[in-house]
């Protein structure tokens, strides 16, 4: 049963992409494997939305589904609507032809994934990549290269040096930044980023995040940032969406989700993250392991690991509850989550 199409209320916010009841299934011999299960969420114009999930939670599927880029034989269902301007007619991404998709990609919606090295052609200079991209989309190359230089500088790169290099001559952090510059050279409105910094050192990751914050303002971008690393993104993102085992568990403003989550999984995840200052005793593992896609439990996917699970949880998919201003939680027992999975963030402040 589809849950919740109405929960992201229209009107109050200005969505640039609406994801509605998006599912991705793989048809296996014996049963279907669902790797994204009925996900509905908006990316709002001008925001940074952090999507947090552990490996195998379906978070990369979400990014792929949003650009109809799920690999065969995966089947994407639901709706992905793109609103180029406030109140304009939506573009239904899942209905587009390959040709239409190709031009939408890069020009309107760009994607940056982990591991720049594999995204660059090793026999072509970075300049070659910029020129080829501009050319393939019929953009003015000279003007575009001016933009490229500015973007590279925005990302703390020396344009002359980087443009004349091959990707393997650059460090991981440099080539990943060059890739971000490349993804922005056609002036897209939306940037979808899937673990864009995961292979890098923490200092570089955090540096790139602080640059993204500036770049978002300068170029009026809306950014979807997918990561397994909750603390990394919580300072950057305006809102957080927590994904567990292919479905959304909770969505809300970052600070609220971190301070005042109403979902047992979000809270357990917050507790499981080793940090620098919190007392050691407050860090606890989450018992059990996540289900695999061919074997997701009925009802709430978190039920087998959840200390609050009741019979209802094992049988029925929890609907969304509005748990605070602009925060929604998919949990029958959200009122008790705070007591069942106590967090001691407040204690940390000293």
């Amino acid at each position, binding site marked *: 049963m589809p849950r919740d199409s109405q929960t992201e209320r229209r009107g109050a916010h200005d969505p640039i992409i609406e994801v509605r009841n998006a599912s991705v299934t793989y048809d296996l011999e014996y049963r279907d494997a669902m790797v994204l299960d009925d996900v509905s969420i908006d990316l709002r114009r001008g925001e940074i939305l952090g999507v947090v999930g552990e490996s195998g939670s379906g978070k990369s599927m979400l990014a792929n589904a949003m650009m109809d880029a799920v690999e065969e034989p995966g089947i994407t269902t639901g709706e992905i609507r793109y609103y180029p301007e406030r109140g304009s007619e939506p573009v239904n991404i899942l209905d587009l032809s390959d040709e239409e998709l190709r031009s939408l990609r890069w020009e309107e919606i760009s994607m940056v994934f982990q591991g720049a090295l594999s995204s660059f052609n090793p026999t072509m200079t970075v300049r070659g990549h910029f020129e080829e991209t501009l050319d393939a989309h019929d953009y003015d190359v000279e003007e575009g290269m001016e933009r490229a230089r500015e973007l590279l500088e925005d990302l703390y790169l020396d344009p002359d040096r980087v443009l004349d290099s091959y990707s393997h001559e650059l460090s991981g*952090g440099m080539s990943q930044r060059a890739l971000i510059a490349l993804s922005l050279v056609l002036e897209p409105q939306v940037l979808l980023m899937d673990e864009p910094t995961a292979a890098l050192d923490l200092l570089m990751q955090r540096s790139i995040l602080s640059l993204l914050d500036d770049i978002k303002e300068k170029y009026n971008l809306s950014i979807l940032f997918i990561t397994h690393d909750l603390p990394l993104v919580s300072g950057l993102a305006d809102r957080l969406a927590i994904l567990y085992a292919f479905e959304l568990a909770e969505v809300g403003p970052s600070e609220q989700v971190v301070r005042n989550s109403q979902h047992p999984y979000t809270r357990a995840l917050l507790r*499981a993250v080793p940090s620098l200052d919190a007392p050691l005793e407050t860090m606890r593992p989450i018992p059990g392991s996540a289900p695999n896609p061919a074997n997701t439990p009925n009802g709430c996917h978190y039920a087998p690991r959840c200390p609050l699970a009741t019979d209802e949880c094992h049988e029925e998919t929890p609907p969304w509850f509005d748990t605070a201003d602009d925060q929604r939680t998919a949990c029958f027992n959200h009122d008790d989550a705070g007591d069942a999975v106590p967090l001691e*963030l407040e204690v940390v402040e000293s």
Partner: protein
Amino acid sequence: MSDQRNSTGSQTTDRDDETVVSLEDVSVHFEKEQGLVDSLFNDAQRVKAVDGVSIDIPENEVLALVGESGCGKTTLGKTIIGVQRPTDGTVTYRGQDVWDAKDGNRDASVSYGDIRKALQIIHQDPGAALNPNRKVLTSLEAPLKRWNSELSTEDRRARIFALLDRVGMQPPQEYAHRYPHQLSGGEQQRVALVRALLMNPDVILADEAVSALDVSLRVETMDLLLELQSQFNTSFVFISHTLSNARYLTEKAGGRVAIMYLGEIVEIGPPEKVLRDPKHPYSKVLRWATADLDPSQQELTDPPVRSIDIPDPVNPPSGCHFHTRCPEAREVCTTEAPELGDEAGQPGAHCAGCHRTDPDHEYWDSDPLDGVEPTDAPRPRGESDD
């Protein structure tokens, strides 16, 4: 999770102060690979992966080596366990020079084989370290057959099953008959850990053993490692690029953290000091890089470095290696390399290699470099240097 040793205090009493491995002024330099044309016309380029490091690993030590990629932490780790030969300096195991033993020096009191057995490693990618075509049991039996050939098949297996059970792989008989691809990443890592522990080693090097795991598994895995560490009286050297993992491991075990930058240890000491109250500007930068869950600490500020990229290790900057990025660098830093201090290799000491730790250094009268905000804070004169 029974054994949560108190972080301070207890260590000094129950630590056996005998040194297992000792490094003295160790350097590891690699020739950088280059094309034929380059090699005809240029001298070979040398990367100083480890540059003049001295450190002792006592029994029951938990040491975390932390730094960005390319800082030399993995090379230093491998040098500590005697699989990487230093280009300079000496590595001794219980007083025996490791590389003398390897070279067949007849006077060796400990054979190289015994040293290798005593110093074990768990790789970052345990899947790659296990033979995919062999069952877990076969992989685990091999080293025992080699090193403990006196054991009967039965005893050998009993030992393996007991350890598998100990690391939570239950029932062990069933796990022992699986192939690596039938194990999860976390389980493969436990097998690698069991393989190391079967040798009753003195030191285990764990290379990024935790950061590859899913968040929800990290604390559990670290607790297991620490339990085994104390149960087997093994010293652990953890290599990590994650400060928060390093803190968890070392603070819980009363160990040490060493921060590395371009081949050198720049700060070393107990985690409560190095991570909470860092003295070296680079350690402070790493702290900035470690996102805090506390929402009030989350605001994204600009990186507190003058350059976010690490310089080429082939040509590390003169003087203090960090001066090209350091937010506090002054003229003198470009010419004079700071010392970490003699006591730095000793357990318990907190030392940082930065001129700022010396209240009488000419640093304080030197001009700030371009892009450095001059600090008008009074000199830390009279401050004791613990």
